[in-house]
């Protein structure tokens, strides 16, 4: 082995085979290892960094002080919401951002269903992306990350069916003679001039709906044997239907002391439906206003939310951390700031590489 391999390693020019050869050589004995690290040390010591401009350094320092301020605010406070005073410019930017949402994100396709000869629009949002649209009848729909919504091009019908996989908030225009139906994998949710949220991600095995205004009715679409009778939901109620018998009972349901009355509905004869009366609905709907809110949510469940919200994937490498509960709100925090804040309230370590996050004890 000649030192040529080391020099080429320093310059990042080794082929895979040579890499392996060098690694074997370095691991063979202490003398080799010392030769290798000595040369690398010399290389490192001769670095000459003069690439960063003063402006870049200023930006970096701004980032640093923001993070420190965030940390200082956090210690001693239960909430992990950053306390920030916003300027008018900030609100103007927010307004601009909302307008962009409508036109900016979500990929739309047109789909023709041969069975009913009806044309549909398909909207897909990716992770980390949200979309908002206004239908021709004035109905407003906010679509959360990683979701798919299909709605008919022709809204002039006595029954309009939109199909949802994922999460969306509906503010349905009042029209007396028309039913507005949100069809999820397992249940239909029928509305008459109401505002409500529907969350139905396949991987969660639940359909959850939260009503803010008006009245909605939940009926069996095709698969929900759990739901033997239709359910009428009143404002400020939140309903979780467990469509997958394997699905774990959700965080709020597990914690019986949390958030108002919870009743088992005897007439439905099912343990798989939970109704929360007097829910704090904003927790379940504030995502449409750009807030990520959570209350006593297990870290494992929170990780799912963060994955969609930030378009990242999270690997939890410590079992105990999965069950830790977190409460908080993220507004404009970056994923770095969010993880930082979380790790301050109950300590864990994390690494972020591109969009991969690893959580460790």
């Amino acid at each position: 082995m000649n030192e040529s391999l080391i020099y080429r390693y320093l310059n990042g020019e080794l082929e895979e085979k040579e890499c392996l050869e060098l690694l074997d050589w370095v691991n063979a004995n202490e003398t080799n290892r010392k030769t290798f690290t000595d040369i690398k040390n010399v290389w490192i010591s001769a670095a000459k960094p003069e690439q960063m401009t003063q402006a870049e350094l200023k930006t970096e320092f701004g980032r640093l002080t923001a993070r420190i301020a965030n940390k200082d605010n956090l210690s001693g406070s239960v909430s992990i919401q950053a306390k920030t005073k916003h300027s008018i410019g900030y609100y103007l930017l927010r307004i601009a951002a909302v307008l962009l949402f409508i036109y900016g994100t979500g990929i739309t396709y047109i789909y023709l269903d041969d069975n009913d000869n009806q044309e549909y629009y398909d909207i897909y949002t990716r992770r980390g992306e949200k979309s908002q649209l206004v239908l021709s009848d004035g109905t407003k729909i906010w679509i959360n990350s990683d979701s798919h919504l299909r709605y008919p091009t022709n809204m002039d019908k006595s029954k309009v069916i939109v199909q949802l996989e994922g999460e969306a908030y509906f503010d349905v225009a009042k029209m007396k003679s028309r039913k507005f139906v949100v069809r999820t994998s397992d249940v239909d949710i029928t509305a008459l001039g109401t505002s409500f949220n529907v969350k139905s991600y396949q991987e969660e095995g639940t359909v959850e709906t939260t009503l803010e205004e008006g009245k909605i009715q939940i009926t069996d679409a095709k698969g929900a044997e759990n739901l033997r009778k239709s359910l009428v939901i009143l404002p400020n109620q939140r309903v979780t239907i467990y469509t997958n018998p394997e699905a774990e009972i959700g965080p709020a349901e597990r914690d019986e002391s949390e958030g108002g009355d919870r009743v088992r509905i005897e007439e439905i004869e099912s343990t798989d439906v939970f109704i929360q009366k007097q829910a704090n609905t904003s927790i379940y709907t504030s995502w449409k206003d750009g807030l990520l809110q959570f209350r006593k949510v297990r870290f494992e469940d929170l990780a799912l939310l963060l994955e969609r919200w930030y378009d990242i994937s999270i690997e939890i490498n410590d079992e105990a951390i999965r069950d830790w509960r977190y409460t908080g709100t993220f507004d404009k925090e970056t994923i770095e700031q969010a993880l930082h804040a979380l790790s301050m309230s109950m300590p864990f370590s994390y690494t972020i590489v591109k969009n991969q996050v690893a959580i460790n004890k």
Partner: protein
Amino acid sequence: MEETFRIDVDRIRKGDENAFEKVFHAYFERICCFAREYVCDWEVARELAQEAFIRLWEIRDNLDDGSDIPALLFTITRNNALNYMKHLTVRQKYSDYTKQQHLESQLNLIALSDLQVDILFRNDMQKAIHQAVDELPDRCKEVFIMSRHLGMSYKEIAQKLKISGKTVENHISEALKRLRLKIKQNM
């Protein structure tokens, strides 16, 4: 270089942001570049550097007149980078990183574990090394700077200077030997 720059430890201890910012301006990029040599990812390196300065600010109460702030910054970064690298090499094994990247990370991890971190922040040492680079024979210096500071590949250097790849390597070897000697003399 920073030899004329004096860090006001006392003001940092008292929470003076200006004094802290001065240290940041003097060392942030060096810390970034140092971390990047091992983690091979500018974003990660920047995060590690940010973390080091956050840590420094957090422990400012514990500083005293004898505290060597550059030593602290480089040591914190080195330890965090080591942690990061250990996880990285495990993860690379199972994910879609190339075998080559995985092997290179293992080499970097060994090098970082054995790094004598003081050669990076001791001003006399840095001064001696930069002086030694300056005093290299002309061609040797030219090749070394192209490789080390301009990030050119050996092939590019060979083409530019119309010399063989072997000659490029010989120059690099010569330069590193002289610098190594300089480090030994200053230890």
